[in-house]
């Protein structure tokens, strides 16, 4: 169910970090380690998600958004609240 | 525009260098011309018995008599036009107008007749007339005796407009002007009359086709003429203390302009500051700026700066008059801006 969402998130990630290879991304691995993202990339990614899905991502939640799947779940969860 | 260049007969006398005022240099030039050519005569308001508003012609009446040092009634249009007519008929009149402000009463004659005559007659008639007039501010003469309107005449094809800024030019330009077959307007800045300087020898013919580089420099070109030249040179001294070397160009001829000298200098310095006592709007400074943009655009490393008179009729009160006129400090600032710092 989260598959299309994961793909969409991946596409957004590629937009922010065009030098990653989406073909090798494992949605269950922590993005920072796997994709060599730095804090700025990551913030930009989460900001894009916040903007696109109209959800607030409090500072305190950031630490638990490590994998694409976690992010997808988070998005699904918070969208459902609206 | 076809620039006219005339072979000038140099009337040079071997005299030793002496100190002389701008006014005296002018008078010497007049005396020399009157002596050399019987067709030369001087005409204007109070040039004879009074000795000239600015005392340039003092003493000439005694030597040359009232026919050749001819006091004219207060009728600028008539006596300037009479100068045109006399020139048409083969004389070499030198007409003096008290100030450029008064010349407006004769502007019809200067612009519609003198300047146009050669062309509208298909080259049959030319007007070898010299008109001298005082210009400029600085003597608290207020709004009808202080303006710098030479640019109005420099606008007009058919006229040659010159502005001697140095003692040597005051001494030498008249002969060149008299040798010119077309009307020449000589603008003498009132602030210059009392300036004094060394003059070597007698008359040295001035090449009116060439601007003079009064000071060489590499950092910026200051283009000026007439009464603003001393200010530009003073600014150059001040800037030199700060390590900024400016080139100061004295245009000498306002029409035609020696574009080549201006362009060559700006090609070296890449920065131009124009100092012109005229009002900035529609000024000669604007014309020069336009020439630089048209012909030296790719050489410019900074916006062209203009230092001109404030857009106000010249006021009487000393401090207001000073405030209205281009100042040395403004030239310095303009050069500094042009040099980016």
């Amino acid at each position, binding site marked *: 169910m989260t598959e299309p969402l994961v793909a969409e998130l991946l596409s957004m990630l590629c937009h922010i970090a065009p030098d990653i290879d989406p073909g090798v991304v494992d949605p269950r691995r922590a993005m920072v380690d796997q994709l060599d993202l730095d804090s700025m990339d990551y913030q930009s990614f989460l900001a894009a998600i916040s903007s696109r899905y109209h959800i607030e991502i409090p500072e305190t939640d950031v630490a638990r958004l490590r994998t694409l799947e976690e992010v997808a779940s988070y998005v699904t969860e918070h969208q459902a609240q609206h | 525009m076809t620039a006219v260049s005339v072979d000038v007969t140099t009337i040079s006398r071997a005299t030793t260098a002496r100190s002389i005022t701008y006014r005296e240099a002018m008078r010497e030039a007049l005396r020399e011309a009157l002596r050399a050519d019987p067709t030369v005569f001087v005409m204007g308001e109070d040039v004879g018995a009074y000795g000239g508003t600015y005392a340039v012609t003092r003493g000439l009446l005694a030597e040359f008599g009232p026919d050749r040092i001819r006091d004219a009634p207060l009728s600028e249009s008539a*006596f300037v036009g009479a100068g045109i*007519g006399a020139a048409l008929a083969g004389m070499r009149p030198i007409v003096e107008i008290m100030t450029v402000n008064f010349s407006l009463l004769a502007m019809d004659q200067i612009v519609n007749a003198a300047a146009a005559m050669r062309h509208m007659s298909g080259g049959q008639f030319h007007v070898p007339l010299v008109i001298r007039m005082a210009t400029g501010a600085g003597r608290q003469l207020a709004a009808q005796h202080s303006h710098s309107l030479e640019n109005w005449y420099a606008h007009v094809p058919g006229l040659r407009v010159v502005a001697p800024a140095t003692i040597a030019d005051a001494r030498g330009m008249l002969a060149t002007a008299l040798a010119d077959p077309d009307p020449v307007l000589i603008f003498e800045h009132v602030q210059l009359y009392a300036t004094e300087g060394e003059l070597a020898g007698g008359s040295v013919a001035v090449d009116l086709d060439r601007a003079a580089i009064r000071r060489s420099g590499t950092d910026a070109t200051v283009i000026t003429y007439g009464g603003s030249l001393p200010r530009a040179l003073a600014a150059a001294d001040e800037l030199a203390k700060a390590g900024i070397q400016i080139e100061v160009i004295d245009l000498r001829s306002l029409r035609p302009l020696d574009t080549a000298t201006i362009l060559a200098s700006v090609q070296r310095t890449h920065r131009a500051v124009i100092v012109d006592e005229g009002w900035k709007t529609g000024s000669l400074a604007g014309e020069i700026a336009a020439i630089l943009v048209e012909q030296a655009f790719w050489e410019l490393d900074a916006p062209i700066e203009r230092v001109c008179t404030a857009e106000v009729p010249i006021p009487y009160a000393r401090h207001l008059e000073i405030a209205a006129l281009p100042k040395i400090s403004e030239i310095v600032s303009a050069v500094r801006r042009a040099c980016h710092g």
Partner: protein
Amino acid sequence: MNPTRDEALRLLGQMLLIRRFEERAAEDYAAEKIRGFLHLYIGEEAVAVGVLDAIGPEDAVIATYREHGHALARGIPPGEIMAEMYGRSGGCSRGRGGSMHLFSRAHRFYGGHGIVSGLLPIATGLALAERLRGSSVVTVAFFGEGAAAEGEFHECMNLASLWRLPVLFVCENNLYAMGTALSRSHAEPEIHKKAVAHRIESEVVDGMDVLAVVEAARRAVTAIRAQGAPRFLECMTYRFRPHSMFDPELYRERTEVERWKQRCPIEAFTARMREAGVLSAEDIAAADAEAIATVNAARSFAEASPIEPVEHLLDDVYTPRGVA
């Protein structure tokens, strides 16, 4: 004055030449061969012809923008005048001047000037040169009564009188400054009195009578040469045509024009000469035919004259090096 047959033929021939020339000029204007302003002199021929008959080739002449008549009477070749109006290279001002600015150095004709009264200071200066030179040359200046309202007019009357300059001021009083009637522009409508105020000897003459004009002009010129002082001649005249080709003539009555036309200087002169037995009807017809032939030749000359090359546009703004 009782002219000889030759004198009569000369005066008639010149007046007819001006008349026929201008009639054709008006035609050519309508056909767009002549453009700009065209100010016709028709009706006033006796003034130019009469005054210029009184001076010699060494004398100087200067006139207003309504100067075809003066240029023709001064002897400038009609072809060159017409070519000038056509804007051609063969024009007397090489196409630079047009109708209003006819010049000829050879004829000491110092132009056609478009600024009303602007020619007066120049005339004064031409005379000043002769005064300084001590020559007996006279300068003749033609201007309209409209010029007498200008400050320059008074400056020049004063200057010429003050300096005793050999100049003949000829006021062609045709009663209208463009469309403004004399009475509406002059507090003192007797223009010669303004000259008198400057102590210039003045005379009023019927400008429709060429012989009267000749006589008055001769008197004035003789006096100038003898006394070395200016003279003023007010010639009462009338232009039969509008001010210029653009003028609808709203300011004057047709009847007034018709009344003046009854006094046509050419008809008046021919009638008088026939009456006096100086000229025959054949003489007059022949003179007219000659004038028409001259005008036709002038038009042919103008037509055949090349236009100035545009490369010469900037010529004669300044004197080239080595000239003059």
